[in-house]
């Protein structure tokens, strides 16, 4: 490697930094003012690319391309404003988690809308008119468009800087970022400010997407793949700081460029290909920054975000009626495989639903009683699945030890490592870090082809011996799910569970009576991860193959929806929510071609109409009826 090569890559890094900056900065501005983490930011960016594609191909020529960028920016800004007016305005006062979910529902709806309009083929746009050539720099050729991109980031940064410093709108944004309540006090029309801020943030995403058209094809995976990048930029830079966002983008892009420039190197006799690190690099940067500077490079400690969530009711042991009901359900579950004579699909679906119950229960454990909102729970599911699958394929183990030892052990190791970092943060920052770790696991699995099979995954992981029989495997799943659920339930009611809930309710008070807040949260994290690993192992053998899809953010979010569907504040919620979600998804996938949009709408209904979840709503109802009965008419 020469100095020239290194410099050349560093220049390339500047171009990438501009892209990254445009991905993150809008999200940062939106968060700063509204305190909403907009999961749909990647979707807005994706729309930007698609709209720019349509302009460039339908209108054509220089006007179609350059004008298309302007049109995309404005159109996506308008869409952002619409999302704010129709949806977000209703949930500013809702708990954080609901806001995240609502915006995720938008992701699903936009995803299907895009599929409906543009189809599912990757669409490669034309090259930028007037910038199709390349320039020779340091003996290498650099595309003119990349050089143009280098300047776009700093230019946008300057414009935003001017906007914030010199205009009334900008001053309001800064004031709101520092103290949201103050803006209300100033007598500003908050609703309009928020709408405009959303339009600005969305427009920036649209611009970022449109500018990317000559460099990557428009495709439907952009939305979710981008959330990770966007979060990293915002969190590393500090939420709400635009300069921070550029700095973060620059650091990440340059580190990636350095990895590429280093390429394969031999250190102490071990050869290592640094370019492999590119996918993981940004998440490593984020993990390091969050640990050293928990509020990001340029961020300030968040003022206490006042949520109006009502404190939870005390958890009570199940009453006789609930226990009886559980007994009946269990009996039905045990005899379910007998139904497969009439409905062969019953066992298959049953296995999926049980695994979902275990997955959701393990996530609920840290979310509900633990109060830690994980957005990367799929990591432990994936570690369990890959652990079990590889133990069988590469390690030659048989089914049971792979399932009962390797799967939980792999997840345990991951949860212990990641959890140690995560419990040092709280709130949105903790959510982001869990997501980042989830993405790290995903990237490693995706890139380490020789071991994990890369995008093909591991195939032929079928249970052996007796377990090869579907019914018997079903009973094993049932037994392990029931044990796992009962175990976590027992822990919730045991002294440790009380301690965990104490730490969630009031960390200050908990520390003042001698509870080790971090240690308790860490142990909870590990317990949940380990149990989730078993669910992952069961999944591997149920499907016979594992792909990186198993670890995707999509699954982490499915888990959150399952937990909320059941109700966050009830111990038995996830046992219902997991299977119900699976059933819904299964039915939707088979009956509705646009099932994602349908699922998104279901989520929106939960968030807007049943914020307590199904089980929570039933409990609420029962209480209401009981109170009415007690009161004389």
């Amino acid at each position: 490697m020469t100095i020239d090569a290194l410099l050349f890559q560093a220049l390339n890094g500047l171009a990438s930094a501009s892209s990254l900056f445009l991905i993150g900065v809008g999200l940062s501005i939106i968060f700063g003012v509204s305190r909403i983490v907009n999961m749909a930011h990647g979707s807005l960016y994706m729309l930007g690319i698609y709209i720019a594609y349509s302009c460039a191909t339908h209108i054509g020529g220089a006007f179609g391309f350059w004008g298309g960028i302007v049109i995309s920016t404005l159109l996506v800004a308008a869409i952002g404003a619409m999302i704010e007016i129709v949806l977000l305005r209703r949930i500013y006062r809702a708990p954080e988690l609901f806001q995240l979910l609502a915006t995720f529902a938008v992701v699903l709806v936009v995803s299907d809308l895009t599929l409906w309009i543009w189809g599912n083929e990757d669409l490669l746009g034309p090259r930028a008119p007037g910038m199709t050539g390349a320039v020779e720099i340091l003996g290498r050729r650099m595309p003119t468009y990349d050089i143009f991109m280098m300047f776009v980031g700093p230019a946008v940064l300057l414009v935003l800087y001017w906007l914030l410093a010199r205009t009334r709108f900008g001053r309001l944004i800064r004031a709101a970022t520092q103290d949201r309540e103050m803006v209300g006090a100033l007598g500003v029309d908050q609703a309009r400010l928020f709408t405009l801020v959303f339009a600005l943030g969305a427009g920036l995403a649209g611009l970022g997407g449109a500018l990317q058209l000559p460099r990557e094809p428009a495709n439907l995976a952009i939305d979710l793949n981008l959330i990770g990048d966007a979060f990293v930029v915002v969190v590393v830079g500090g939420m709400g700081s635009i300069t921070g966002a550029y700095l973060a983008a620059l650091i990440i892009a340059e580190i990636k460029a350095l990895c590429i420039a280093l390429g394969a190197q031999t250190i102490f006799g071990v050869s290592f290909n640094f370019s492999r690190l590119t996918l993981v690099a940004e998440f490593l940067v984020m993990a390091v920054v969050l640990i050293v500077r928990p509020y990001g490079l340029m961020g300030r400690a968040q003022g206490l975000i006042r949520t109006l969530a009502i404190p939870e009711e005390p958890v009570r042991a199940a009453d006789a009626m609930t226990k009886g009901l559980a007994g009946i359900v269990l009996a039905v579950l045990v005899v379910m495989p007998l139904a497969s004579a009439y409905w062969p699909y019953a066992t298959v679906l049953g296995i999926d639903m049980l695994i979902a119950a275990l997955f959701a229960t393990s996530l609920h454990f840290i979310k509900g009683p633990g109060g830690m909102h994980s957005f990367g729970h799929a990591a432990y599911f994936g570690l369990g699945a890959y652990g079990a699958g590889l133990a069988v394929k590469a390690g030659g183990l048989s089914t049971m030890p792979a399932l009962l030892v390797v799967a939980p052990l792999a997840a345990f190791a991951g949860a212990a490592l990641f959890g140690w970092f995560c419990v040092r943060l709280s709130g949105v920052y903790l959510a982001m870090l869990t997501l980042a770790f989830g993405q790290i696991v995903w990237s490693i699995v995706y890139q380490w082809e020789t071991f994990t099979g890369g995008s093909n995954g591991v195939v032929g992981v079928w249970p052996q011996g007796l377990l090869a029989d579907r019914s018997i495997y079903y009973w094993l799943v049932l037994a392990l799910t029931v044990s796992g659920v009962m175990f976590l339930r027992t822990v919730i009611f045991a002294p440790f569970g009380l301690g965990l809930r104490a730490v969630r309710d009031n960390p200050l008070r908990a520390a003042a009576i001698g509870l080790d807040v971090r240690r308790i949260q860490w142990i909870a994290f590990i317990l949940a991860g380990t149990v989730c690993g078993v669910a992952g192992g069961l999944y591997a053998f149920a499907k016979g193959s594992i792909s990186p899809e198993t670890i995707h953010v999509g699954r982490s979010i499915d888990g959150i929806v399952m937990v909320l569907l059941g109700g966050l504040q009830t111990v038995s919620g996830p046992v219902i929510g997991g299977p119900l979600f699976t059933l819904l998804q299964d039915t939707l996938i088979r009956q509705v071609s646009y099932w994602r949009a349908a699922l998104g709408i279901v989520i929106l209904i939960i968030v807007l109409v049943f914020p307590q979840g199904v089980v929570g709503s039933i409990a609420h109802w029962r209480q209401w009826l009981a109170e009415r009965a007690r009161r004389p008419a």
Partner: protein
Amino acid sequence: MSVLEVAGLAKSFGGVKAVDGVTFNVERGEFLALIGPNGAGKSTCFNMINGQLTPDAGDVRLDGRSIARLSPRQIWSAGVGRTFQIAATFASFTVIENVQMALLSHRGEVYRFVGGVGPRHREEAIALLDRVGMADQSYRSSRELAYGDVKRLELAIALANDPKLLLMDEPTAGMATKERNELIALVKRLVVEHGISVLFTEHSMDVVFTFADRIVVLARGRLIAEGDAASIRANKDVQAVYLGTGKVFERKGAARPSGAQAP
């Protein structure tokens, strides 16, 4: 001998010297009031004594051993109980569970993963609740309690580890006069009967002058007077601070949950 020795304690936030070289002692079995106008630095002192904040300078010694850089957890194990200015309990627990939690922690039984909490230390918890007059509400959910009752529950929690020193930041804020006097009389009894030393802050001068053994006065982070009720009442500096003749001591009223009562 002194239970607690505070020596040259200091803490700044940004440029503001919230506590500026404060020195005082709490004797064994003493009921000591720390008073001062809003923003004087009382809560900040408490936060440094119980380990929630690390002092910029100075030392805190409990029974002669320095605790200034220990965590709240370690300081609690050393025998310091604490109540907060804005009462802190576990809102999702029943009243008795709040106390059971503290007892479990005191006995080192937090890391038990099986066996329900229900019967553990139940009698002892009820006895503690009885001491603060809350036994009859043991099984209520603590989020439904009246604020005065939350304060009493918090006291029961703080007593769970048999503390030798109790730090009470405005224990009676938000209480009616009658309730206020009852609670302070209760705490005073604890001091007399169990030999617990109590350091408390309080805005009602009636309460302070009637019950406190000794009074320490802070203003703008500095200790300006120390002594018994009579000498504090007679102290010119204190009068200046409290009667508003010395404008230097006036501060913009910080947001307070209670109606501050200046005599």
